[in-house]
């Protein structure tokens, strides 16, 4: 088994066990206000970190492909116009692909 397969199995089974813990743990553990606040903030901090890393990490050093940045900026405009997920996705890849084509 390759390391990637092993990592996939560990992460996938781990995510399932988190769901199972939710329907099995006593309610008092998960209903604690501080625990709930940390859990609410977790996806926010990590998704934001993922955006930053996807945009500016060129393998352990800072780098930036302005065509990707332009695509994501176009996606932000779609979000500001209250477009759904699919439109944001298509606008971002479309703009990046177009800029690659013409530059």
């Amino acid at each position, binding site marked *: 088994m390759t*390391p990637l397969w092993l990592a996939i199995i560990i992460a996938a089974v781990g995510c*399932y066990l988190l769901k*199972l813990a939710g329907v099995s743990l006593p309610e008092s553990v998960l209903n604690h206000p501080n625990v709930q606040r940390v859990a609410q903030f977790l996806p926010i901090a990590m998704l*934001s970190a993922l955006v*930053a*890393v996807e945009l500016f990490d060129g393998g352990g*050093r800072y780098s930036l492909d302005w065509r990707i940045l332009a695509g994501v900026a176009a996606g932000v405009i779609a979000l500001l116009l209250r477009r759904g*997920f699919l439109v944001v996705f298509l606008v971002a890849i479309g703009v990046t692909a177009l800029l690659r084509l013409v530059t």
Partner: protein
Amino acid sequence: MEEPLPERGAILKAAIGIGLYAMAFGASFGAIAVGSGLTLAQTMALSLVMFTGASQFAFVGVAASGGSPFAAVPAGLLLGVRNAFYGVPISEILHPRGFARLWTAHFVIDETTAMAVSQGTPRARRFAFWATGLILFSLWQLGSLGGALIGSAVNPEEIGLDAAAPAVFLALLWPSLRRREARWVALAGAVIALALVPIAPPGIPVVAAAVAALVGGLLPDREAAQQIDEADHS
């Protein structure tokens, strides 16, 4: 014979709508996953077994950044933590016992929880959970498979697919940014991750951003305190 559920049609219609949206979301996941170097089987293993969108995207996002694939494990897990909290309302609705817990758990995700808790009667809540769960699961797999097949047929960079991951993460993050506290947590998470890019191994910057959530969550809840304060003075 049980009486037919009056909300049945409306729930099914909403569940199919959510399912179609999930299929498009799944297709982008499939395309990004194979673009990041996963095989078709690996992509489908994530969709079938992990079955929670944000974690799947985070896993392939970090796995693609180079270094050890094990660095992607904590990123996927930390994004899956929220599903554990959905278990509280879902347990109250479904009361799963014994083996029922094992398969119920697999379907406890954002969409099924939102659909279940928004219904008016216990029967409608149970129906909404299972209708949304089963439809979404099927269409998510179909979407992932289609996206992975398209993604393997084309050059990901040529169709701008490398812009898809940051755009998808931003779209997932966007609705939470309405709250001021959440914007601070998001900013702190990004700053922590970026500061660590040149010094930490791949994957670690994203996981370290969890510190922002920990600090933000354990600090006194200023917005709630303010609301209580305002209520006292009115």
